[in-house]
């Protein structure tokens, strides 16, 4: 199958075959990281703009490395610090960037739908690198690639996503991706952090950590933002971490011995994950980061490269 979309905006838009193509493409590019000369000419002469309206070190760096390993020219534009401070609107900035003829724009923004709005305005490809609490498709793809590598398949796997589901674009993208690939998903957290009607997305809901992690193949812990306390969603960090923080003891008591622990980063060490879990034997957090570069190479290649030709290496 060939990639036919101009943009990568949301996992909800994709079917299982498209998701598999994205993951397979990423997997085929993974070995570039092990080369002595980490560069292939696949995107030589292509321009990629990283348009980041929200502070991000990891995701931006990951996209930047991915573009550079494919020989694209990568330009970083941190909109929070420059033109937006002068009152330039999102649409206006976007149009100005477009006038410079990039091949792909990677956008991160605090507003849900920002990538979709940009994609409507721009002729070039747009990659959603996170739009508010909506979606973060490359994160879901790198999570899926990690799971497939560690477990060998997706069929019948059961994943628990734990924490602030309501405000998490990572949770949303993973729910769509995992459901489409035939996995079972349980979301868990205090009810105030579980978005309304989430069951209608085909997931189970648990309100106790012990229930959520029992017998699952993968536990994905989400980052808890400090501002959830001031919004009255949880009483205190202390209480949250007591009931929802994952520790080696809880894992030993309730989880399977071959469980994978994932986290999209950055980890609040000691809040949702104890340092022993984050750095422990179950953790695949750094594998996720490494796969992130491969996934972003794959996405940029499919969007900006010679479409579907396959001779990228």
């Amino acid at each position, binding site marked *: 199958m060939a990639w036919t979309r101009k943009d990568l905006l949301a996992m909800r838009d994709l079917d299982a075959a498209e998701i598999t193509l994205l993951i397979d493409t990423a997997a085929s590019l993974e070995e570039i990281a092990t080369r002595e000369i980490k560069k292939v000419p696949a995107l030589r002469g292509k321009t990629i703009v990283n348009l980041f309206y929200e502070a991000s070190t990891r995701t931006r760096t990951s996209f930047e490395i991915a573009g550079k390993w494919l020989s694209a020219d990568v330009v970083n534009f941190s909109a929070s610090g420059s033109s937006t401070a002068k009152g330039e609107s999102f649409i206006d900035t976007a149009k100005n960037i477009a006038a410079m003829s990039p091949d792909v724009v990677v956008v991160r923004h605090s507003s849900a*739908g*920002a990538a979709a709005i940009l994609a409507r305005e721009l002729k070039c490809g747009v990659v959603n690198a996170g739009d508010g609490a909506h979606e973060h498709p490359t994160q879901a793809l790198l999570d899926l690639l990690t799971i497939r590598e560690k477990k060998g398949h997706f069929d019948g796997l059961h994943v628990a996503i734990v924490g602030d589901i309501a*405000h998490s674009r990572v949770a949303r993208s993973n729910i769509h991706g995992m459901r489409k690939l035939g996995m079972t998903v349980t979301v868990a957290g205090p009810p105030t952090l579980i978005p309304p009607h*989430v069951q209608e997305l085909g997931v189970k809901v648990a309100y106790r950590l012990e229930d959520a992690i029992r017998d699952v193949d993968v536990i994905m812990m989400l980052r808890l933002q400090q501002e959830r306390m001031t919004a009255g969603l949880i009483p205190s960090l202390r209480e949250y971490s007591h009931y929802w923080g994952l520790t080696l003891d809880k894992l030993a008591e309730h989880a399977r011995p071959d469980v994978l622990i994932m986290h999209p980063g950055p980890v609040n060490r000691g809040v949702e994950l104890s340092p022993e879990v984050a750095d422990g034997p179950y953790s695949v957090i750094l594998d996720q980061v490494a796969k992130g570069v491969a996934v972003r190479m794959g996405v940029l290649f499919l969007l900006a490269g010679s479409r579907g030709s396959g001779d990228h290496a």
Partner: protein
Amino acid sequence: MSLLVRNGRVIDPANQVDAIADVLIESTTITRVGPKLPAPEGAELVDATGKVVCPGFVDIHVHLREPGYEYKETVATGTRAAAAGGFAAVCTMANTQPVNDNRSITDYILEKARSEGRVRVYAIGAVTRGLRGEELAELAELAEAGCVAFSDDGKCVMNANLYRRAMEYTLPFGTPVISHAEDQHLSKGAAMNEGVVSTELGIPGAPAAAEDVMVARDILLAELTGAHVHIAHLSTAGAVRLVREAKARGVKITAEVTPHHLTLTEEAVRAFDANTKMSPPLRTKRDVEVLIEALADGTIDCVATDHAPHALSEKEGEFDHAAFGVVGLETAVAVLLDRLVRPGLLSLPTLVTRMSRGPARLLNLPGGSLAAGAPADVTILDLDRELTVDPSKFHSKSRNTPFAGCALRGGPWMTIVNGKVVWR
């Protein structure tokens, strides 16, 4: 100067008329309605064969934006939009800049209306100074200046005691209090309806309960004070149930519904088009069904557009940063004829009632009737007119409609205000 509208289907609910007839207007007054009226000498003749002749439509909820937001709309452009949409009269809300919370602003609006208005304009005064919800505006003077109702629309008067006092204080004026029913704690940060769609989109949602809680409160306050409370832009099944039950108990409560809440659901937000963002937000399919039923059975008294013009720059960017509200004057009649009347969800006479006599009676406005002696405000509809909504052709200064590109059948054909054809 006389005008004879000939051979149309005259629907005049106030007088139980639904028949092919002529309507004779002399000067500013309707003088006769009946079959085959002789034309007075020199009368202008309008052939309304195949058309529907109704009392002039009244929209009791618009934002003309003047003074202060003339870049969005003015009395001149807003009333041209009204005329082109088949409305003979509009009531304009108080959230101007400065707020219409004192007599000089009311005078200014009404003077603008006299000099530049294409249709009748009535002013709605603020309940509280600056719409701040802290102290009462000078309500008696506003009423004397001509305000026909009071509302902090756009904001909810969260202080129940202050709102109670406003209801009591205005009792002698016969001016209803109009509620923007929204608990602002429950709706804090929300940009759409709370439900499975907001969950998927990651956009903060306002639960239906944010509206229902306040509708319930305002029903109880209406009961306590004996005041007439009118619920603006009612949008939930729960609020319909509350209003229906309160009316059955004899509470003086009335309600309006917008064309967009009658025809669109939260699903429309999926494209992240800010022209689907308004307050209250688009709700669920079930809410829409219940609203249509309530409009048909009279639980909801009238249609009002909540015409809320905004400049492109306030609507083109990020969804959560965009302004709330959509324009409605130039699409309301066509949308309702096409989406409700044509499929048989609402009868034509009921729609005519809910857009003319219904709203006029609520605010004690002249009009809403084609009886001899009534003011000569007439709306004529063409049920076969086909049009595709093209915002670039709007008379309004603003283009923020959720109906752009919709192909609609049926719409206004002519608007007569005070005996004069103001749009055809």
